[in-house]
């Protein structure tokens, strides 16, 4: 763990976008590139992460910084289509489509909580998704996958990194689209993602150092990812110049 080595955090606008200054030093990515982001609001939020560190820098709490570093460095070296395909692949094992048969109470809870979200996605995107109790998971038609591929292609590379991140956290493409489309809140999406855990917690009790810990972490990461996507795909109503990708 590094000690906080800077007094002041500020942002400035450079040629490539907005930069973060730690005292007089410019923030760089892990691979040494200059840290620049396309959105002023995102830069402010990143600066706030750095400024809220106390004596030691806790990198594991700085989710927006991490997302920006991933977008800038692209350490997994994936191109846009690879990211999209990875995201859509999650649909085959989407949490909300994968149902249990017992216990009956959990099966009913899944129906009551997850069916509406699937119905929303089917209507919004004009696709067939469905759900399944089979161990193989739901059978997603190819046309459904293609619809999501086309839709995700309309997002820029930065936003896509964020979308794929949220999907990986929630283990669900459908819940992630619900967030991106502002149909559900982060708290609700996390609850739906953790439905079985919540069911078991209701039955057996909550263990703060595990359950609440995981819950807070998932909420933090999901909120960061969602905010990241929205800030990176802002429309022209924003007054500031955006970096075209």
């Amino acid at each position, binding site marked *: 763990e590094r000690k*906080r080595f800077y*007094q002041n955090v*500020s*942002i400035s606008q450079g040629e490539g976008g907005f930069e973060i200054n730690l005292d007089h030093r410019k923030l760089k990515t892990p691979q040494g590139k200059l840290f620049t982001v396309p959105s*002023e*609001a995102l830069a*402010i*939020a990143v*600066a*706030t992460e750095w*400024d*809220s*560190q*106390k004596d030691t820098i*806790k990198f594991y*709490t700085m*989710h*927006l910084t991490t997302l920006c570093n991933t977008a800038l460095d692209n350490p997994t070296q994936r191109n846009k289509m690879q990211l999209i395909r990875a995201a859509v692949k999650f649909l085959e094992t989407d949490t909300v489509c994968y149902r249990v048969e017992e216990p009956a109470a959990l099966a009913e809870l899944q129906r009551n909580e997850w069916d509406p979200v699937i119905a929303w996605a089917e209507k919004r995107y004009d696709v067939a998704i469905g759900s399944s109790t089979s161990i193989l998971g739901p059978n997603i038609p190819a046309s459904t996958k293609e619809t999501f591929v086309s839709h995700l292609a309309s997002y820029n590379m930065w936003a896509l990194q964020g979308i794929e991140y949220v999907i990986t956290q929630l283990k669900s493409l459908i819940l992630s689209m619900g967030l991106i489309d*502002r*149909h*559900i*809140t*982060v*708290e*609700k999406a996390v609850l739906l993602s953790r439905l079985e855990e919540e069911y078991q917690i209701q039955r057996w009790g909550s263990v*703060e*150092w595990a359950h*609440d*810990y995981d819950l*807070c*972490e998932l*909420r*933090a990461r999901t*909120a*960061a990812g*969602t*905010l990241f996507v*929205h*800030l990176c795909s802002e429309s022209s*109503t924003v007054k500031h110049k955006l970096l075209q990708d």
Partner: protein
Amino acid sequence: MAALGSPLRTLRGLLRELRHAGGRAGRPYRNSPAYQHVVAAFRAHRVTSEKLCRAQQELHFQAATYLCLLRSVREHGALHQEYHGKGERAPEEVAGLVGFRLPQQPGGKG
């Protein structure tokens, strides 16, 4: 549209979290870029309980998401500190937990 509640409540919550997030004491959190940005954004969009304006809803959702982020990071940090922050015990302490003492070995451990 997500069930967001009152924009005023979101704003208040967000400003409170920004106060907690101010790392170093001394510099007033009200001068921080984040605080100024949030207040300016809410003022510019004049977020009210009106349900009609799409830009307002987008801003409110963003604000609520950011609030969730700040709050969850803080709560996670507090839980981490309380349950996982203390590191390992020294061998002497571990032995002492069950009433043993480590043997004294002249010349160090074998």
